[in-house]
């Protein structure tokens, strides 16, 4: 018998804030976490725009020994996970067994690699790199340090699939629970936010070069959008089998209704739209829901010219005459890349908890490619009970998740 998979905890380290109520309020009010970083101008970046995590002090919840092997993204993940476990009222002792594990999405260790290379060249030796360089430089650092932190003895994997990493981490964690191989999986994703992690993207010309107010730069679905704004942080969910959650009397926030994945198999950076269409359709079929039963689509829309238009057309085709409300929270967060598939599920769950759907920030005139879509222009006082979250990454890797919010 397949197990039902539920969400019992949410933890975030976000450009929108640290506490769940503060983040929900930022989403409702459309408060942006985007700034302009002067260091990037000095380094010759085309775009100095970036999300910023304010007032982040991991020493508040992690000891020196716990922190020493954690790189920047691992710290985001660990603090988010501690918050998620608190939100789930989950005693850490319940994680110290082989039925508990971690699956974290991450696809870079750029700054750690930069630091190691810079130090080796300047010192003329590797002997001054210290003990942490090897762990910091591994893509799996966030998941392995989390497993050590909580003492989980089950799965310990890293999902690397570009900007679908977070969604796939949730989906794979859900599959392991559904099949009975795990009772509880700490899932989510992280994204380093430093310049080294973003230099290559900047070189591609992928970023917005908006010259005015930085909070107006990320403009998903807008006719005048000119590229994405990089961002990051950490987003973690506690996934459990419904049986396990009920046995410990946990509050159930939502049920995972579907996880679909596929690839375009087409181009290394340009999406083709067909993969997105097939992935959303597959998720809907799997969920057993009809298009009219989806209240909200949290779009991947990153504010790039090609990507937003293709996703808009795919959503319009999938839902036909039953168009759900559509918004991209990237208008306020920027593109949280590897983390976005996890954080945007968390943001949507917060909307469901607080009874609203966040607007598309900075959307004045929609791209004509969005014809037929119900784009949210002002925050709506509607509960997105059943929602679809899209994630489409470089390499044409796609993932769609459908959740049904609950409050049991």
């Amino acid at each position: 018998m397949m197990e039902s998979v539920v969400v019992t905890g949410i933890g975030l380290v976000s450009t929108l804030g640290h506490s769940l109520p503060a983040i929900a309020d930022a989403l409702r009010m459309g408060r942006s976490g985007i700034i302009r970083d002067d260091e990037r101008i000095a380094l010759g970046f085309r775009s100095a725009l970036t999300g910023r995590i304010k007032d982040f002090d991991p020493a508040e919840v992690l000891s020196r020994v716990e922190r020493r092997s954690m790189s920047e993204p691992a710290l985001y993940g660990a603090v988010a996970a501690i918050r998620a476990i608190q939100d789930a009222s989950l005693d850490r002792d319940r994680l110290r067994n082989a039925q508990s594990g971690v699956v974290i999405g991450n696809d870079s260790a750029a700054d750690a690699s930069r630091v190691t290379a810079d130090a080796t060249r300047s010192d003329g030796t590797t002997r001054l790199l210290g003990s942490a360089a090897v762990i910091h430089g591994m893509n799996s650092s966030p998941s392995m340090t989390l497993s050590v932190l909580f003492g989980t003895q089950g799965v310990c994997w890293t999902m690397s699939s570009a900007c679908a990493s977070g969604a796939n981490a949730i989906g794979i964690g859900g599959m392991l629970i559904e099949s009975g191989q795990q009772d509880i999986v700490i899932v989510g994703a992280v994204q380093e936010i430093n310049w080294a992690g973003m230099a290559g993207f900047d070189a591609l010309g992928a970023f917005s070069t908006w010259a005015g107010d930085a909070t107006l730069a990320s403009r998903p679905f807008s006719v005048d959008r000119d590229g994405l704004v990089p961002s990051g942080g950490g987003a973690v969910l506690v996934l459990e089998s419904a049986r396990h959650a009920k046995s410990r009397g946990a509050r159930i926030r939502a049920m995972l209704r579907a996880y679909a994945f596929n690839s375009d198999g087409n181009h290394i950076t340009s999406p083709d739209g067909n993969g997105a269409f097939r992935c959303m359709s597959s998720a809907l079929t799997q969920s057993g829901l009809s298009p009219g039963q989806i209240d909200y689509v949290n779009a991947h829309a990153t504010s790039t010219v090609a990507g937003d238009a293709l996703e808009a057309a795919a959503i319009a085709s999938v839902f036909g005459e039953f168009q759900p409300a559509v918004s991209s929270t990237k208008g306020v967060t920027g593109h949280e890349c590897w983390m976005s598939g996890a954080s945007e599920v968390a943001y949507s769950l917060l909307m469901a908890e607080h009874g609203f759907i966040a607007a598309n920030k900075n959307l004045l005139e929609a791209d004509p490619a969005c014809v037929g879509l119900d784009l949210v222009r002002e925050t709506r006082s509607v509960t997105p009970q059943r929602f679809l979250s899209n994630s489409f990454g470089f390499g044409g890797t796609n993932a769609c998740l459908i959740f049904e919010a609950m409050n049991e």
Partner: protein
Amino acid sequence: MNNDIDEIKMQILDLIAECFEVDRALVVPEARLKADLGIDSIDGIDLLVAIEKRFGLRFNTDQLSDWRTVNDVMDALPNGAKAQPT
């Protein structure tokens, strides 16, 4: 010369407290690295690196596994070590 060695030793005590977030009052020559200060074998590598960077010298890394107390660290200081301006 003795004054210089005493100054180096004081600076190492300060360095240990700073690097490993230990109460400076606990960092005395007799203190045991693991039992009293929570400095384990992985920290030992970082302690060696921190001292080498601060004082611009090189330890014989074979000695690392013999470090049990703060005194062992100071006894392992290579000849020619000089106190650094603070």
